């Protein structure tokens, strides 16, 4: 079976500094992967290369058979198949919650408003926020905003969901509600790539954990194995600091 996401020899440079120094990674359908590592290790950049929010300097990124580094690929189309959730939520502040969710299905997928809204209400049910449909984003708590952001991404029926430190900007008491939604999503069989500092989530929910350091995947493995018996010294010292 061809992998959902296939990354070969990926390098990313910002001016002089090389942030990703040759990444090879295959992600299977329905796999849930978390990427951990110290800040500045390139984990967010790697994630953002997967939907080309960052341009790739060298190497290949192939998503569901589409080579993103090929200039003939319709990147907008590929992105409709990949949801992304950001650390800072990035809800559209000038649109109500419901319109945040229905905008892309209506404008990009050309759905009827009625169908898009029906779907949006289902998704709001899923994240437990149906009663907030008519609220403005600014009236929500951080945890609620992030759950709306997840619903917004899911409205496009993506095949993959990318999470860029989804709980890092949240107050501690709100982290749980967001992780619960993500866990449910994982159980439903969504392919997920999660950059996170939540080791509990990585351990409990993920099929595979990648440890990144200085632009390389230093170590990877099943969560139990990696957390309990890290092979590399760097992994050990990182886990020693965060666990």
């Amino acid at each position, binding site marked *: 079976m061809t992998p959902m996401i296939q990354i070969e020899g990926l390098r990313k440079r910002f001016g002089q500094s090389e942030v990703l120094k040759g990444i090879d990674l295959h992600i299977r359908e329905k796999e849930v992967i978390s990427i951990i590592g110290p800040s500045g290790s390139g984990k967010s950049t790697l994630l953002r290369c997967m939907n080309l*929010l960052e341009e790739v300097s060298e190497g290949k990124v192939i998503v569901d058979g589409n080579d993103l580094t090929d200039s003939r690929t319709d990147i907008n189309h590929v992105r409709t198949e*990949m949801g992304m959730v*950001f650390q800072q939520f*990035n809800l*559209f*502040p*000038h649109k109500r919650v419901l319109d945040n969710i229905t905008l892309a299905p209506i404008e990009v997928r050309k759905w009827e408003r009625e169908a898009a809204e029906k779907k949006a209400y289902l998704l709001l049910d899923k994240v437990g926020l149906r009663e907030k449909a008519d609220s403005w984003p600014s009236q929500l708590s951080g945890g609620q905003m992030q759950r709306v952001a997840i619903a*917004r*991404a899911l409205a496009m029926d993506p095949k993959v969901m990318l999470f860029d430190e989804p709980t890092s900007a949240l107050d501690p008491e709100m982290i749980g509600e967001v992780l619960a939604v993500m866990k449910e999503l994982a159980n439903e069989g969504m392919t997920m790539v999660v950059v996170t500092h939540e080791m509990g989530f990585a351990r409990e929910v993920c099929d595979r954990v990648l440890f990144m350091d200085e632009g390389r995947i230093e170590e990877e493995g099943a969560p139990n194995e990696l957390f309990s018996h890290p092979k590399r010294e760097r992994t050990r010292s990182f886990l020693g600091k965060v666990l």
Partner: protein
Amino acid sequence: MDWSVIVEYKDLFIRGLFYTTVLTIGAVFTGLVIGLSLGLMRLSKKRLIYVPAKLYIDVFRGTPLLLQILFIHLALLPAVTKDLLGLNSPDAILSGFVALSLNAGAYIAEIFRGGIQSIEKGQTEAARSLGMSHSQAMRHIILPQAFKRMLPPLGNEFIALLKDSSLVSVIAVNDLIYAAQTTAKVTWERWAPYITAGVLYFILTYLLSRVVFWLEKRYSTEEER
């Protein structure tokens, strides 16, 4: 002070009011179209697109409006209407409209650019990650938010434009200043005509600032509160 001259020459002032208003409103709308286009060009990553826009903006902001009005009326437009098309010299009102629009376009372009750049990068990224094209993201996400932030500086620009429109009197457009000057010259009454013109300008700018204030209030609804 003889205020009866105002009554005597009221037609001149009414016409002046009309020309000043029409010229300003016309230049505001044309300037908005030019400004939005230039502002977007200015933000392009392609040299061929942003360099001409930058050049335009620099030239129009770096030279006096009075010079632009004279140049357009006496050199640029006649070159088109007379030499190229074989028609008469351009109407002063047309020259004034063109000069004010082009000038306003340069200032409005910078307001648009600033407004667009003030929107967090995450907004574009969120829109693009949902599969929206660059122009869809601009239209639905960036511009509506930027517009709200641009309203106060746009208001300033419109008020400045209204007052600067008085410069077109040098090419004999029958605007408010022209009415005041003519009345003063003919009647030898120096106070009343200029005070009248000043009061009328003030009323116009005051009304304009109320419109902008109303727009600002209308567009800052519950969101972001």
